[in-house]
């Protein structure tokens, strides 16, 4: 039959296209977070400590700008409070939560200060913004890699402008200054507002959690990632503490 509707070539390429689309569709499309009024929310709080003596932080010889940064500088991987063993810069977060407290967009400040990134570890939610500043009288560059892939690399000269950008995707962002390779940091971006970074005493608090059972992720840059399960009772306080072995 001439002029038939079905043309073999179209047909195969059609199939190829369908297959192609199927193959290229991301397996799990991230569900958007929904902010609601949380009735009888619970709190998760606790203390993350270092088990035993903390390893020495790596010390780097400063090759570029020693006149300002000093001859050597130590990394800030392990910040353990000598008084209570509290481990700073641990990121604690709930997993797979798609509905909960409302989150007002925040701006996280990342400062280049005395040849370090301050703070060394940050956490935010997709939709927040970050602002990069340079308080040093030398050129830094702030190079952000989301899961290893460059998403931003801005020059931060002396007296330069602050750079403000939105956080559009969740994931782990590694921070580096290529001009001073010992300068590193991490920025965690979540799809929800249930996360915290431990303070100088290793303490953290996450509030207004809808009652239920959750997986909690505990991350510290010097330790393999840990998972725990917690149950949040209505209006209750749940303690989550952990001793992390740093070696």
């Amino acid at each position, binding site marked *: 039959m001439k002029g038939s*509707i079905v043309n073999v070539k*179209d047909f195969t390429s059609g199939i190829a*296209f369908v297959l192609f689309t199927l193959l290229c569709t991301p397996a799990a499309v991230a569900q958007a977070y929904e902010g609601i009024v949380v009735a009888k929310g619970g709190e998760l709080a606790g203390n993350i400590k270092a088990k035993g003596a903390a390893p020495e932080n790596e010390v780097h010889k400063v090759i570029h700008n020693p006149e300002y940064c000093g001859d050597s500088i130590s990394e800030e991987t392990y910040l353990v409070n000598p008084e209570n063993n509290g481990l700073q810069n641990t990121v604690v977060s709930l997993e797979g939560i798609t509905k909960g407290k409302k989150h007002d967009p925040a701006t996280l400040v990342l400062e280049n200060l005395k040849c370090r990134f301050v703070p060394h570890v940050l956490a935010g939610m997709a939709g927040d913004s970050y602002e990069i500043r340079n308080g040093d009288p030398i050129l830094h560059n702030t190079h952000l890699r989301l899961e290893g892939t460059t998403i931003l*690399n801005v*020059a931060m000269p002396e007296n330069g402008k602050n750079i403000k950008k939105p956080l559009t995707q969740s994931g782990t962002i590694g921070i580096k200054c290529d001009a001073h*390779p010992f300068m590193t940091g991490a920025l965690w971006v979540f799809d929800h507002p249930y996360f915290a970074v431990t303070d100088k005493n290793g303490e953290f608090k996450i509030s207004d959690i809808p009652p239920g059972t959750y997986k909690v992720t505990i991350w510290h840059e010097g330790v393999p990632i840990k998972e725990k399960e917690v149950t949040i009772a209505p209006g209750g306080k749940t303690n989550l503490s952990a001793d992390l072995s740093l070696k």
Partner: protein
Amino acid sequence: MPFKKLFLSGFRGLIILGLFFLILPANRSLASDGGHSLNLTRGKGVYERYCAGCHGVKGDGRGIYAEGLNPKPRDFTKGVFKWTGGPAGSMPSDLDLMMTISEGVNGTSMPAWRGIRESDRRYVVDYIKTFSPRFKNETPPRATFIYPPPPGTPDEIDKGKTVYEKNGCMACHGPKGRADGRSAGTLTDDWGDAILPANFSKGVFKTGKEEWKIYRSIANGLGGTPMPSFSDQLKPAEIWELVYYIQSLRD
């Protein structure tokens, strides 16, 4: 018309109609995509013929000729590109990719592919974009505006020197642009390889002779490399002064 014949032709019509509905959605997107899948098939052909030797059949930069090449052929699976219209870290547009492919990367093993038909270059652009999901999830931003160049007087070259020194280009490129800055030996790229800053004393730019492209490299930086973007920090006139100054560093 005998009943049997009517039934048969009706039945056949039904089958054809059914098939039609089956492929209708696919065919529709084909049409609205300008025959996308067909282009991909062609793009694959062009790619495997001309590019896979270096960039690898899987686009991972591990073609049979890749070993020993420095810089290494691009690993497309990461979805990071050096020459983009927007700042370092953003996605390249089809036009950006077309330009790199047509003009090659000066001073490296990446050839200029002007010799292959323009339509084939377009198909191969479509095909390269299938190697990373980033092309589906992110769109290229508006290209950085390239301001018209000032005349390039000796005065501007002098000013460029000051801008160069004040903005720390030396950290990587060195005081005279000889790729011997103090941090030059410590630099790495997104692909995990050591990378050297450009050596301006050679007078060879990867993007060739066109000055607006040198401007673009300074304004946007180069994605996946330590070369940062300066467009937020420098005025267009200062970037042009830098362009003139670093060209004057040629031996």
